[in-house]
């Protein structure tokens, strides 16, 4: 699994953090997405796909 985030597209909804807090964080100054790991363990795959699905800005791409 490989994750790509687009910080320019991100609108800081924080939904990725709610879905997968071990993979996504928000930077302190404006809440924009920060990727904690771009290749998380497989057991987080469902959470990561959930994060990508609920991102309102389509700023998360997951390549399996």
């Amino acid at each position, binding site marked *: 699994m490989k994750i790509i985030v687009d910080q320019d597209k991100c609108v800081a909804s924080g*939904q990725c953090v709610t879905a997968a807090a071990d993979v996504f964080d928000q930077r302190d100054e404006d809440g924009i997405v920060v990727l904690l790991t771009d290749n998380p363990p497989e057991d987080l795959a469902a959470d990561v796909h959930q994060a990508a699905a609920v991102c*309102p*800005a389509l700023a998360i791409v997951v390549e399996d």
Partner: protein
Amino acid sequence: MTTPVYPMTRATGCPFDPPPQLRELQEEAPLVQVDIFGRPAWLVTRYDDQRALLADPRLSSDVTTPGYPSPTGQPPRKDGVGIGFILMDDPEHARLRRMVTAPFMIKRIEAMRSGVQKIVDGLIDDLLAGPKPVDLVEAFALPVPSLVICQLLGVPYADHDFFQQNSKMLIKMTATPEERAAAHGNLASYLNDLVGEKLENPGNDLLSGLTERIRSGELTRQDAAGIGVLLLIAGHETTANMIALGTLALLEHPEQLAVLRETDDPKLVAGAVEELLRYLNITHNGRRRAVLEDIELHGQVIKAGDGVILPNDIANRDPSMFSDPDTLDVHRDARRHVAFGFGVHQCLGQPLARMELQVVYSTLYRRIPTLRRAVELDEIPFKHDGAVYGVYSLPVTW
């Protein structure tokens, strides 16, 4: 076939369900030409299409874009002090929005949770010590989010009657243009004064944070006041309606309420919040956009200058997305609902709203386990005329 007229009315006795005509249109076609206050617009009926279009930069949220479907039938206006970035497009929308995203970060909202719990517990203490029956809207549903948003923004809670009354008027669809303009003017000048005070004596709150942007020249005082108006209204009206209408819906579905009353699992509570957001759709007036460039959808060309309506109430009841969609089921995985919208305009305050609702739904029914309606269902005044749906009052006893 005559052109359907939007908005449509709910069926008598079904206060939690979208208008039946919306469901019929959803079954018939994904894209339907409707009439909104004498003007044509496209109604997008299905979940997938709504999400795709709401994330599409070829759609504009600017009310002055040609084709934008007026929600009230009155011509669009941009007031001297707007209501913030909600009616703007990128890049200006993104520039302004990013100035206020930090306080709504998940970790900062989580840090507020124990304070919100104290507010909720204190109001329930007052309810239990006070007379009954009592109007849950006045005594609980409005105070909870009003207290919280006041604290976050730096607005004195003592002014709550003023801002609650003016907000209610501003989002009442049946208000005259004059009434709405007056309410907006009152709020805008109030926030403008408050921003002025924060410029003199900044505190540790969101409005004070904006004054730094004013000083640095990134933001005008007028835009700061506009953002304040938007966040103050959106921060209390919406959540208050979810608390009261959600409680009523749970009282009408006692087996669902029992699940919440008896659980101490935060994940189950969080899931129930998502399901109530999906099921209730308090923003029931259709998200609206104007088309900037031709878009092809299902073999139909939606032309530049056309208006589009994307009602989340019907998207969240789309059976191709949610099985058995008209059933309230707190165990359902409803997390992909579009109650907060979708795309770059999706609700800024959603982490706060979620947290507040989680605290309320996990506390109120546990502490008042015999909570019940004090009047018949058909005596409860629903906000059919509100841009935000809910109940004007909810007399309860226990």
